[in-house]
């Protein structure tokens, strides 16, 4: 995988036109993440309807990898149940070799399992950048954990 491919259209498109940017008027939960070593920032608002993420809005600034990962993640989680989000997060982390386990990606059919997110696979070749791709996901995990603990969901 060349750099050209890594930064291929998909990543640049999400970097320059991030999806679900902004704030929710009265979010059920808000979570913030930062990579202190490089200064990347990512935060998000969630509306949770029962067990489903009804809406997400994201904020942040940083490199193309962190911000594109956040944009793709936001697209992938709206309308999903919390269980589905756990499964998605685990698949993403296996694809990125952040977690142990086989990558779920089907090499024969690019994009068929994780959609645009598969464009981030190339980041694995740049170990110092993997944490950039991971930042939005650790922020999401923090938000979901708080939803599940019930501490943040407003009546």
């Amino acid at each position: 995988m060349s750099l050209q491919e890594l930064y291929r259209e998909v990543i640049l498109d999400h970097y320059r036109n991030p999806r679900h940017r902004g704030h929710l008027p009265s979010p059920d939960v808000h979570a913030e993440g930062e990579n202190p070593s490089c200064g990347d920032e990512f935060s998000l608002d969630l509306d949770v309807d029962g067990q489903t993420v009804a809406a997400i809005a994201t904020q942040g600034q940083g490199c193309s990898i962190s911000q594109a990962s956040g944009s793709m993640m936001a697209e992938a989680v709206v309308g999903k149940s919390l269980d589905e989000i756990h499964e998605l997060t685990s698949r993403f982390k296996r694809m990125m070799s952040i977690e142990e386990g086989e990558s779920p990606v089907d090499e024969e059919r690019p994009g068929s399992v994780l959609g645009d997110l598969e464009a981030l696979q190339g980041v694995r070749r740049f170990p110092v950048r993997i944490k950039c791709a991971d930042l939005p996901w650790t922020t999401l995990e923090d938000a979901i954990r708080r939803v599940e603990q019930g501490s943040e969901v407003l009546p």
Partner: protein
Amino acid sequence: MIDAATIRKDFPLLERRYGDTPLVYLDSAATTQKPNSVIDAISTYYRETNANVHRGAYRLADEATTAYESARTKVAGLINARSSSEVIFTRGTTAALNLLALRWADHLLSEGDRILLTLMEHHSNIVPWQLVAQRTGAELVYLDITPDFAIDLDRLDEVLDERVKIATVSGMSNVMGTIGPVDEITKAARAVGASVIVDGAQLVPHMPVDVQALDVDFLTFSAHKMLGPTGIGALWGRGELLDAMEPLEGGGEMITDVGLYESRWAPIPHKFEAGTPPIAQAVGFGAAVDYLVDLGMDDVRAHELDITAYALDRLAEVPDLTVYGPQDPARRGGAVSFELADIHAHDLATILDEEQGVAVRAGHHCAKPLMRHLEVPATARASFYVYTVPEDIDALVIGLMRAREIFGIA
């Protein structure tokens, strides 16, 4: 005149390659590479001279002590200190500034007093003073940055009144390259009786420094940014001020007598060097100073002016590139921070590394207040030293043009 292409042969690490791609090292403001003479001095010390210093009655210990103390003499000579006893070996600039904060500032300051800083300081010349402020009730005041990346001296008279007891200023910015207005600040500080500290982490490696001519009170610097090893640096201070300060740490080496309930301190510099010091590192530091003195600090500066002028010219050819620092090489050192179009500095650093083997730093460079002032979350920074050749800059420019392509910028 320095011939950087020849000098490079003294630096084994600069021969490194990633596969077919040669390493292009443009991160000397973070740490410099080391010449063979420094590497050999450290290794020879361990092979032939190693013993603990200052307390052996045998020849080897005497040789080790001489090696350690002669490094001090060399460092003192480099900055033209009146006496080598005014040079205290520390862990580096950060440790030296913290020593001053804890033992000079804490003693000197009380509620309502002020410490004057500039907006271009490195975190290591900010955070220790915030801690002083918390302990003593003193306040921090900052000199601003002008739109052409200099320290704004217009408000100096207004800010510098009798409440200011300490002025602490970087001799050279590690982000913008700007040379600090040490003379102006020192003159103004003298007029109100404030003491002056210069963070010389970037200044001392890159320019001739004469502490007697500068007329400042303290100067701090790190060996690893001037061809020497990590783990050692120096605090220079006026003898009478160092004499008046209490030791930072107690232990061996720093006493003349120890009783059950009290002790007498050794004279400077040993009062501030409790415990076994970094002896091999000091020897390496001395060898680094020898290397620089051989080159001549005037020539080191002349080379930096040349290579920085070349870099600024070449960078001006890259469309959509913004340099955060003075355009005039005479006002700056060889640390050049920049932004390229909407490409984040981390992306730029990855592309430069991968495509051209160019090592640059990306981020806030431990100067967050400055970055906020410049309104950039991160910059990429290329920085130069005695071994930097024009070809290194050419590789940087090729990499930047390649980054534009990868990001689809026409």
